């Protein structure tokens, strides 16, 4: 057995007790993911782009839960002219969820995207905002800014300022919305990324938990009353998900908000893991399992500062 298979089996075994259907879960983890994308409405009308893309792949389908999330049978849409001119952005379906959970707030607001590179969510939000309002897209690593800037340029995003800071030392800045798409063990992307198995280490949970709490804590600390904070990861690990949110709820004056995306199958956050009990409010978090919507795994929490 190679390392990829070993890690995959470890993940299946570890999280089977949390899922509703163990067999389907295990089966889905072993299936590769199809390429997904969204149309960049800042540059072109959705229908026009889709009609053109259907000339290359007539089987392109739109998901039931997001009218701008599309799946293709092709795995190289990155070499289409539509990608070159910035009409499409190749993005995992689950990665499109965070902006959707605050769809009601997103127009003409000020947003801080704390860990923005490579810019999937930033560019998605800019499109939803029709290039109005203001986004601060921050990342801590200089090397990652190149891809962020490249995507902002290609997609024609003009309402965004790019900053290079460790978010934990970011100056207190008021905004209506804070996005913390935190670095994580990325277990949930194992269907797509072979690199996950290469870098996966059991002891990383603790390291990531500390980092995530630092980032989310900073966002909650600087958020003014009434503003919203969205926390997301692409890992199954409760140590990086509910535990982080639970600890933050206990420390900061934050209130959980229930998330509902119509027609997206999901489950609530868990309140117990490894003999540890979490704040019962974390039930309002959302868990997306790979076998539910044929996607990666994803975790998301929406909070409001009291």
């Amino acid at each position: 057995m190679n390392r990829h298979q070993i890690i995959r089996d470890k993940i299946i075994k570890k999280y089977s007790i949390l899922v509703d259907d163990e067999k389907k879960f295990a089966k889905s983890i072993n299936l590769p993911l199809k390429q997904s994308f969204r149309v960049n409405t800042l540059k072109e009308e959705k229908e026009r782009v889709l009609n053109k893309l259907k000339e290359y792949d007539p089987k392109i389908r739109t998901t039931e839960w997001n009218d701008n999330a599309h799946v293709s049978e092709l795995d190289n849409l990155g070499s289409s002219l539509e990608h070159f001119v910035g009409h499409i952005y190749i993005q995992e379906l689950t990665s499109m969820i965070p902006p959707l959970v605050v769809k009601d707030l997103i127009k003409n607001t000020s947003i801080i995207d704390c860990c923005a590179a490579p810019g999937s969510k930033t560019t998605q939000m800019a499109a939803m905002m029709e290039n109005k309002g203001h986004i601060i897209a921050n990342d801590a690593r200089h090397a990652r800014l190149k891809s962020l800037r490249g995507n902002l340029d290609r997609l024609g995003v003009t309402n965004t300022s790019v900053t290079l800071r460790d978010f934990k030392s970011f100056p207190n800045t008021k905004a209506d919305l804070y996005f913390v798409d935190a670095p994580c063990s990325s277990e949930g992307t194992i269907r797509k990324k072979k690199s996950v198995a290469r870098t996966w280490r059991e002891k990383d949970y603790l390291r990531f938990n500390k980092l995530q709490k630092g980032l989310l804590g900073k966002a909650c600390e600087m958020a003014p009353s009434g503003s919203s904070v969205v926390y997301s990861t692409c890992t199954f690990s409760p140590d990086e998900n509910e535990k982080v949110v639970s600890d933050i709820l206990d420390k900061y004056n934050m209130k959980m908000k229930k998330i509902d995306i119509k027609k997206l199958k999901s489950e609530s956050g868990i309140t117990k893991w490894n003999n540890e009990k979490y704040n019962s409010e974390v039930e309002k978090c959302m868990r997306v399992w790979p076998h539910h919507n044929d996607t990666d795994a994803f975790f998301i929490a929406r909070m409001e500062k009291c």
Partner: protein
Amino acid sequence: MLKPLVKEKKELIQEYCVKRFGMDSDIWNNYKWYAGSKNKIYLANTLDIERIIPESKGICIFRLDKSPKPTTNFLQLFGKYISKNYIEINNKNTIKYCKGDDLILESNKAIVPGFVLITNNKRFLGCGHWNGKLLKNQLPKSKFCNINFL
């Protein structure tokens, strides 16, 4: 570090866009203009952030050396407002253009030599420089790519 662009330079670019591409200068009413390093001009509709200097704002639209040079980002985003000095190329040439090649095209008297917008089937590809015979590719190297679907 970005600084607000001086009025004279802003007017110079706007005048260039009106004369060269037949654009309406009103389209930039809601934008702020900035000057960056290496004579780069940025266009953004962002707010100023207190106590932090951003790495960049909005998109780089021009380079202002001896004369204004539009960027591919600018032409792709504002191509719909361009009414003259654009060249439509066929699929074969589009593949070459995206690879970074220069193109030899039939002469076209309607196109005044200088920077042009390259289009393919209503898609705005980017910038080229036309001298009456040769269309010199102006794509940045980072954008060179092989196109399989068009």
